[in-house]
């Protein structure tokens, strides 16, 4: 067994436990003093809570009990029978009921984690004292902009690929490899992150089998997908939020993320909310610039007590 690699500033969570979400085991990691006020830190699609190993300790050091969990099928949480946005929302509520029942808390959500928490802030605003959304405001569908006839063809192709994938997943498992190979594969989705960081992530987000390392992410999950969902309906929701809101968008193009730009969503930012834009940073802004993002979030969230 290879010993975990070190990465500057990375801190192993101080507490780790599981929450039962209607039969699905959700893995929770915490940093900071257990008696401090709760700050929920929510990861995005295909990520996991240990991607916060550098960012979370910076928030904890300011007096927050930082609580992050792996969505079902991600990280150390159970691989479930089924996955949906609404199921992720329910799982989140099970965790929050455990750590902060009926108490408003601070929330920082990245990417899909920001979108999930936007839905929660609409459905159950009483859980929030303030909310930071890191590049988690969808404006257009993921994927290239295509003319209508090509869009339909692309969707048809995507559906076929998805069904073929579903036919294989009953027996499938992830492809094994060395730490370096897994890091190289992830670099295709995270081209702006350093090799050292991605190799560190393998040691906390993959497991080592006899034939090599495998990402823990459920092999039945894949990028892309299709459905009747439209990003603009998330925007209508955003406009009506009644909790203090800081939205953060980025300018650098990346395979992950929605690529939303400020002029597209400005009018949907909730009243008294704030929108910040960083032209030269990518989707994983809290990993590229952890100190700067932590400082901005802490400023906005205010004194924990």
């Amino acid at each position: 067994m290879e010993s975990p690699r070190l990465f500057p500033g990375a801190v192993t969570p101080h507490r780790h436990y599981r929450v039962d979400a209607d039969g699905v085991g959700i893995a929770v990691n915490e940093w900071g003093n257990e008696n401090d006020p709760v700050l929920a830190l929510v990861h995005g699609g295909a990520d996991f809570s240990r991607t916060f190993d550098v960012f979370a300790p910076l928030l904890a050091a300011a007096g927050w009990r930082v609580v992050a969990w792996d969505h079902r099928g991600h990280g150390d949480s159970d691989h479930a029978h089924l996955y949906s946005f609404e199921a992720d929302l329910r799982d989140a509520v099970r965790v929050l009921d455990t750590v902060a029942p009926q108490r408003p808390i601070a929330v920082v959500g990245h990417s899909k984690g920001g979108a999930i928490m936007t839905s929660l802030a609409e459905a159950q605003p009483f859980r929030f004292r303030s909310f930071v959304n890191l590049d988690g405001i969808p404006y257009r569908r993921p994927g290239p902009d295509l003319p209508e006839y090509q869009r339909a063809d692309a969707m048809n192709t995507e559906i076929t690929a998805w069904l073929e994938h579903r036919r294989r997943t009953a027996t499938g498992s992830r492809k094994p490899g060395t730490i370096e190979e897994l890091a190289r594969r992830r670099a295709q989705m995270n081209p702006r992150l350093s090799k050292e960081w991605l190799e560190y992530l393998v040691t906390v987000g993959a497991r080592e089998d006899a034939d090599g390392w495998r990402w823990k992410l459920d092999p039945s999950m894949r990028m892309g997908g299709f459905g009747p969902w439209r990003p603009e309906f998330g925007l209508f929701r955003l406009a009506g939020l009644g909790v203090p809101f800081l939205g953060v968008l980025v300018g650098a193009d990346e395979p992950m993320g929605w690529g939303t730009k400020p002029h597209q969503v400005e009018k949907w930012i909730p009243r008294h909310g704030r929108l910040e834009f960083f032209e030269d940073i990518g989707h994983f802004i809290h990993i590229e610039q952890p100190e700067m993002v932590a400082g901005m979030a802490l400023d906005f969230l205010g004194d924990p007590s």
Partner: protein
Amino acid sequence: MSTITLRHNRIELALHELRPATGDGHPLLLLHGLGERTPATVPVDLETWSGAIWGLDFTGHGESTLPVGGGYSAEVLLGDVDAAINNLGSVTLIGRGLGGYIALLAAGARADAVHGAIITDGPGLTGGTYESSVPQIVRLMNQGETPDPYALHELSRDVRAADYALDFVQFSTAHSELPEPINVSATYRPAWLEAVAAAPGVASLLIIDALDLYR
């Protein structure tokens, strides 16, 4: 009635043979409505079908696996139907309510294997709309039996949009050998189904006539 078990990811699906073929022709596959299960016998209005008649229990319904912790979508049920098509080959689909909507998705997604899809009245035909899709966070008691309450809750609210449904009509008509590969027999037509019924390549025959069309 004989039953075979199919695998769709972590779900085991029950595929029931209601009646072997009495003559020529490909199989007819019944897709039940929301909260229902495959009927024990051949429904009267389908007796004229000469090929074999099968019925699929969707995930969380009938004798199929009861999943833990919900997370349903119409697209997952499309995957259920695809598992049945993978086993039976070319089929004609007839769906009640939710099963009718799933039949439409399958007709578009597997246009080469679906020899006609008939949409009929039944539970779960309407679905949700964008406007009604305010997030709801409920905790439901699962009594260990199908139908799964999460299926009832989630699949009665999943968004059915006319433009999305029309994409599947277009895929079906573009790739099927039939001039009218989709038939709407339902009397009640929510907005998405109204749009489907008005599209080119969609017939609106009675069930008995639609069966003749796809025989």
